[in-house]
């Protein structure tokens, strides 16, 4: 019987505060920058996706995805 491993994003010293909003946002941006630079199936970007998915509320991700589609995402991509 294989144990299911449950993990959240590792602690990141850039975001030492209790409020992890900026951590979530930065990981979201890092994922998309990584995909833009290395392509969808390089396999290197998956870790960033795991991080932001465990840090960010689902509604935020939906909103940002929508904004990227509409070309009005405010972050530095």
């Amino acid at each position, binding site marked *: 019987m294989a144990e299911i491993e449950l993990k959240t994003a590792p602690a990141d010293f850039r975001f030492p505060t209790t409020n992890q*909003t*900026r951590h979530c*946002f*930065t990981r979201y941006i890092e994922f998309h920058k990584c995909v833009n630079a290395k392509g969808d199936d390089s396999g290197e970007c998956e870790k960033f996706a795991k991080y932001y998915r465990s840090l960010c509320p689902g509604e935020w991700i939906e909103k940002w995805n929508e904004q990227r589609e509409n070309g009005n*995402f*405010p*972050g*530095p991509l």
Partner: protein
Amino acid sequence: MIESQRHSYHLVDPSPWPISGSLGALATTVGGVMYMHSFQGGATLLSLGLIFILYTMFVWWRDVLRESTLEGHHTKAVQLGPRYGSILFIVSEVMFLFAFFWASSHSSLAPTVEIGGIWPPKGIGVLDPWEIPFLNTPILPSSGAAVTWAHHAILAGKEKRAVYALVATVSLALVSTGFQGMEYYQAPSTISDSIYGSTFFLATGFHGFHVIIGTLFLIICGIRQYLGHLTKEHHVGFEAAAWYWHFVDVVRLFPFVSIYWWGGI
């Protein structure tokens, strides 16, 4: 001072201006709210209130000039009042502008996720600080130097020279306001363009508004100097204008460094 008076304080006569100013302020406030909510007659009441306030300002200050310059009620002891008053007013003005620089720094030092965590926010056009803003920055301190020239001329009793110095001071002030107007006219963003536009135009706009108030104050001093109201020993109005002007010219350095330069690159 009246011969029979045994003290050096000015016991003022009853005056209608406090109540007329209050009524003007009431009409302005109510009219302003009505106007902004598109009530009928709002604009009329607002204009009426503003005219009432301007009228009160004119006649009240006219009375003060008569009491001080013509009737000689402003003894050394009485002069302390407007001096402390001016200083406290300027202190409150410092706090007022401090709030806007606080707002600007609050929004720009750690930009929120909503604006993408970057400053200036994406898509907001900012002014090049090394063009008009940089050109405009030394003009106000120069004007501050010119007002010091006027002060020394007054203290030395050189009446004509003081008028020339005040003309120079006011001219520099007008050039500065002209540049600011040009800058706003050509600006790539407006006050409704994100938190950047809100904080930028609130801080620089209120500073510009204070420059205009200071300029009017100096123009009045120039006219009074021309009319011979100010003497070597007695020129509290001029001193208050000069203090105010130094406050305004020094404050210009803060928006330049923190908003135009640091916040715009």
